């Protein structure tokens, strides 16, 4: 049975508008406009990441991106690596808090097991929160949810923090200890 993520519906409703924006941007780029895909990675680029998701990356063929179904789960298209890796936050075209390439990886690796899949999404969404909002919001998400860690999630982490700038965000988690309370809170 096909499952649809909450974010996917919003995308479909925006579809016509997005197509127009993408086409317009493509034409602008073709006429000598500067590509945003090569902008330097920055720790302050989190907002730009989403904005760029609506832009046409270099080499775009002109067709609007299409959702795919992997293991029965509707997922966004694979973002162009250059664009996706040009900011800390990357591309999250359906705005569901999980980077699109990570979302596809989760569907591929865990789509066949609803329980693990759910925890994998929490894992990825929390890690994206770490990138976007910082340490405590990340801890709030991962400690106050039905999250069950699985060693296999290391594969998600590897993709989530797939370049030095992103890796640094994860690395910085080690700078402070974390205190867990019996009531489940973390800080």
């Amino acid at each position: 049975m096909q499952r649809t993520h909450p974010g996917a519906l919003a995308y479909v409703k925006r579809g016509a508008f997005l197509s127009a924006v993408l086409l317009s941007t493509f034409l602008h780029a073709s006429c000598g406009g500067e590509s945003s895909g090569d902008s330097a990675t920055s720790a302050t680029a989190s907002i730009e990441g989403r904005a760029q998701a609506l832009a046409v990356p270099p080499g775009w063929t002109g067709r609007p991106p299409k959702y795919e179904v992997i293991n029965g789960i509707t997922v966004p298209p694979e973002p162009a690596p250059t664009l996706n890796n040009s900011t800390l936050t990357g591309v999250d075209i359906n705005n569901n808090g999980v980077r699109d390439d990570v979302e596809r990886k989760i569907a591929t690796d865990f789509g066949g097991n609803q329980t693990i899949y759910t925890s994998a999404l929490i894992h990825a969404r929390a890690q994206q929160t770490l990138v976007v909002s910082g340490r405590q919001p990340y801890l709030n998400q991962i400690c106050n949810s039905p999250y069950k860690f699985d060693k296999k999630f290391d594969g998600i982490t590897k993709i989530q923090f797939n370049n030095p700038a992103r890796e640094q965000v994860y690395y910085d988690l080690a700078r402070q200890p974390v205190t867990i309370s019996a009531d489940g809170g973390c800080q």
Partner: protein
Amino acid sequence: MTLLRLLLVTFFLASPALAHAARLVYVNGIQNSFEDALDTSKRLLALMQQSPSKFNLDKPDKLTFVWNKIGFSGVSKGEPDLNEDLQELFASKTNEEFYALDFQKIKLPHQSAFTGDLDAEAAVRITQRIANELESIRAPISVLSEEIDKHIAANEAVIVIAHSQGNLIANLGWAKAVATHGEKVRRQLRIVNVANTTRRSPNDLNFTHAGDAALFYRADVAACPENSLETLPSRKNWKRLSPVCSANNDGVTPAICDFNLSPPTFKASNSGSGSIDSGSVIGGGIDACLDHSIVLTYMSEAVVEQEIDQGIDFSNSRAFKQRLVDFIYQGIKSTILTPNLALSDDFLGSTIDSTKWTLVGLSDGSSPQSPTVANSWITFPQSSRISTEGKLTFTGRKIVIESRMVGLSGSRDTGIYLVDTMETGASLGNSIWFGDTTYYNAMYAGAYGIYSNPAPYILVTSGTSTNQWMEYRLTIDGDRVTVERGMTLNQIDSSQTRTFTLARSIVGRSFFLNIGTGGPAYSPGTFDWVRVTTTQ
């Protein structure tokens, strides 16, 4: 009055320790993502919450973890970061060989945490060796030390639970704490070494089983590739030069030598030292081969037996996870000074209790006069003293002597001596003492012999001599002495409290008690009760 005192004594004995919660701190081993370490920490805290408390202690309600990153970056990438972790281990184990002898000098077994020696200079030397660790190890040592410092400053006890590589970090955290906080670690810090990668367990709380193939070469199973830390150098052909490793022991040429580890302390219940899996289902994946994971193995239901007795007070369950809980509570318990009521006498009946006392008289050679025991008092005439020598001896880091006593005549010297067992009979040459006398017209306290500096004795006095019943307390904590008195011990007159420092600590010495009156002109003297508590 006597009944009330008995009730108080009963309460005292029934309460071996105040409710005492400790902060747990976890440090993970290699190849643990942040989420993995967090998950283990949550499981550890849940295990403590779900298990019955022990020793009348509060259950820990918080656990802090220090994340020891995967490799150099924290992100698992497979082979490259595993190699980085192995490089860290190699560097740390090599470094350990340079401070191993010094580490032996800062070992503080949990059973003798308040009496064992701590060499602060050795701790400083070890701390200086932290600079030789890789940056990826120095960082968690620093975070752990800050966490320990924070809780020690808040007067809280900290139990560090280290797993695998985390032990190399935690042991250096111990050394740093000893160097920074000295004596405070006795009652504020313990390390539980789970799957111990080090050569030492600072508090004899080593929780390691013989079938751990990530540690011990002999635990390898044919179906799995060799993984032991012991044989890491030969497996990788990594050479080193250290105090215990050089070619032909020339002290100059690097060589390949296997590592030394602490011996395992547990074994599978149904096999000598083979796989812990025998008869127990533990985990899956790589841990089915290694039996090394803290969650899948050391917090499992597998039944294990002790291979080395470390003085742990175990629960009935022999499951690994309960044994771990027992270790943690043992660590907490050992941070608490537990007083022991070593002597209590209300002088009931009509004669001295000969299981406790012997009549000794004075050291002036005069014939000792027998005291009178009546109405739950003991009254000493002139030249009369009794001693516990050969019957009761007192040792400890802290000794407290309490008594209700009085000299009712106009000339009195009613007092108590804690006498070093190097003395015999009526001799009081090396002793610590207190009482009330008209000779000084005061409450007095002091010391003779090896406890006195300057020679021949220390003397402090306070208030004026009184023929009123008073309750006295002499507290000796290491080398610090406090003497105080009041109508009752709950009504101490702080203006009469006096303190002084002995020439040496009482730790490691043993004593007997001697009570009675002074010279012929300074009697009689009467005691209602006397008691001695010692704390190791």
